[in-house]
């Protein structure tokens, strides 16, 4: 591990060649990652790609088969107990004691985090109010809706005020309202400077919340900001908005223009597919001007994160299911 990276106070998570094998099968391999403090990092990949194993490794729930990592400055293997007190984990299932009330659930987990009674009481009240569960604090959690359970599970992950949070599919199976509440909570946490690793299959959610996104399939295939990922994967589609409808003559001229693969009329102008959007767009504009078209706007269509996902992931491997 690069010694300066490992000890940098600005980095919350540093991994070097981290891997975990189950029998002969590698679930995660050669994971090299540096997460800054306050960063929201999205981990995308199909089922079975190693996302949950990665979270379990970084939360010191299971040990690595190879490589090393530091979380909040602590060695993952040698200081695993301390790591668990510095990270919060939202597991795939809320995992609540359904016969116990919200308060009793949080109090139990607060005790397991070693929090004193007064601190537990104050934080439980604050978190239950934040997630709008205070009014039902004494009811068994078995009576809660999925959204309420998920909010309570997030409150549990925050109870000991961890610096690093691992959220495994926080909005899975939630209705749009509950999802919005959870997303708002994540945005608030990001504002508080916490580092968040977010596993999700909801690509627009990842795009909206994450500073960077990593595509995982056993190993990290690509890491970048959502904007750069989309820009780099943009294809050659250019949308042109015109003052008047695109006539067939204009379309014929454009089809004959070098670099233009296809042109179609659209309601407000036309859509052209270029062989290389970067170099062929000026030629398209020149052809439009020469043909007397009144151009209002020329816009290169960016790739969606879904386009990028399929581009990076390619075909599903054996044992995987695409999100």
């Amino acid at each position: 591990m690069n010694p300066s990276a490992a000890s940098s106070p600005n980095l919350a998570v540093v991994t070097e060649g981290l891997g975990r094998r189950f029998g002969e099968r590698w679930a995660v391999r050669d994971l090299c990652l540096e997460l800054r403090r306050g960063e929201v990092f999205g981990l995308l990949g199909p089922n079975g790609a190693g996302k949950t194993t990665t979270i379990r490794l970084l939360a010191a729930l299971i040990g690595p088969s190879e490589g090393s990592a530091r979380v909040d400055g602590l060695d993952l293997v040698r200081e695993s107990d301390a790591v668990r007190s510095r990270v919060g984990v939202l597991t795939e299932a809320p995992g609540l004691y359904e016969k116990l009330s919200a308060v009793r659930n949080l109090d139990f987990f607060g005790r397991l985090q070693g929090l004193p009674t007064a601190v537990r009481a104050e934080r439980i009240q604050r978190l239950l109010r934040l997630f709008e569960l205070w009014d039902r604090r004494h009811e068994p959690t078995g009576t809660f809706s999925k959204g309420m359970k998920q909010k309570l599970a997030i409150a549990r992950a925050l109870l000991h005020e961890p610096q690093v949070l691992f959220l495994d599919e926080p909005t899975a199976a939630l209705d749009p309202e509950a999802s919005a509440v959870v997303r708002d909570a994540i945005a608030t946490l990001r504002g508080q400077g916490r580092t968040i690793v977010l596993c999700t299959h909801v690509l627009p959610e990842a795009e909206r919340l994450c500073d960077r996104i990593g595509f995982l399939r056993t190993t990290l295939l690509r890491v970048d900001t959502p904007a750069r990922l989309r820009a780099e994967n943009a294809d050659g589609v250019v949308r042109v908005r015109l003052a008047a409808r695109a006539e067939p003559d204009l379309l014929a001229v454009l089809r004959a223009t070098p670099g233009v693969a296809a042109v179609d009329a659209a309601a407000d102008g036309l859509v052209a597919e270029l062989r290389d959007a970067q170099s062929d767009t000026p030629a398209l504009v020149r052809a439009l001007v020469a043909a007397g078209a009144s151009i209002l706007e020329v816009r290169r269509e960016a790739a969606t994160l879904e386009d990028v996902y399929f581009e990076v992931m390619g075909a599903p491997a054996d044992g995987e299911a695409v999100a």
Partner: protein
Amino acid sequence: MRLAWITAVLERELVELLRSRLLLLSILGPPLVIVIGPVILGKLVAGRPLPAGLVAALLAGRPEWASLSPGDLAAAYSFQQFLFFFLMLPAFIPLSIATFSIIGEKQSRTLEAVLATPIRTSELLAGKAIAAAGPGIAGGLIAYLGFASLVRALYGPELFAIVSAPDWLASTFLLGPAIALLSVVLAVLVSARANDPRTAQQIGAVIIVPLVAAVIAQASGRLLVDATGYGLAALVVLLLALAGVRAGSWLFAREAILTRWR
């Protein structure tokens, strides 16, 4: 091991136990039957002398019973049948609680959240074991004390002396707790693989088989174990339990729970 973490697990387990009415009923029902059953049976058989062959076999094993009247001998014989039933309480109660607790956590997927905290698996296991074994041991002792008090009140000092003899005391205070510990260990071993508490209990009920065999042998007058016998049996059971603890702690490791338990 840290006491605060063990206490936290223990308290939560007990609160959950108190809120599981069905489990609570299945735990409280058998002790009531075992306390009242022999007292009623003793009254029913007191007027009917035992067959001569059985009396001879009994007195060969328990010469001190020779001074009892035929009616009291019949009552003493019926009480003796229930001694092993008192051992079934520390076997059955911890098995029920531990399997419900561990498999319940598997089903509700709470263990991963627990294991994501700084708790050590030895502390988690200790909390669960005490929460399961404690009621079993207490149930056995309270049932025995209730039974002994009823015998004292309804049958007098001679028969009370029989149910408070060293063999009863060794059975209740030594073998009972050892069986409770073995029962918890079995519950952990079985629960790691089973996904249904009732299946786990049926498999774990193998612990009761030797007790049933002992009941049958005793009913025939062929088995009359003395205090030393119960003490030795307690030692053997304890050694078995400790051997099981080694396997149990391996199965109850953080990694094993998260990656091998299905």
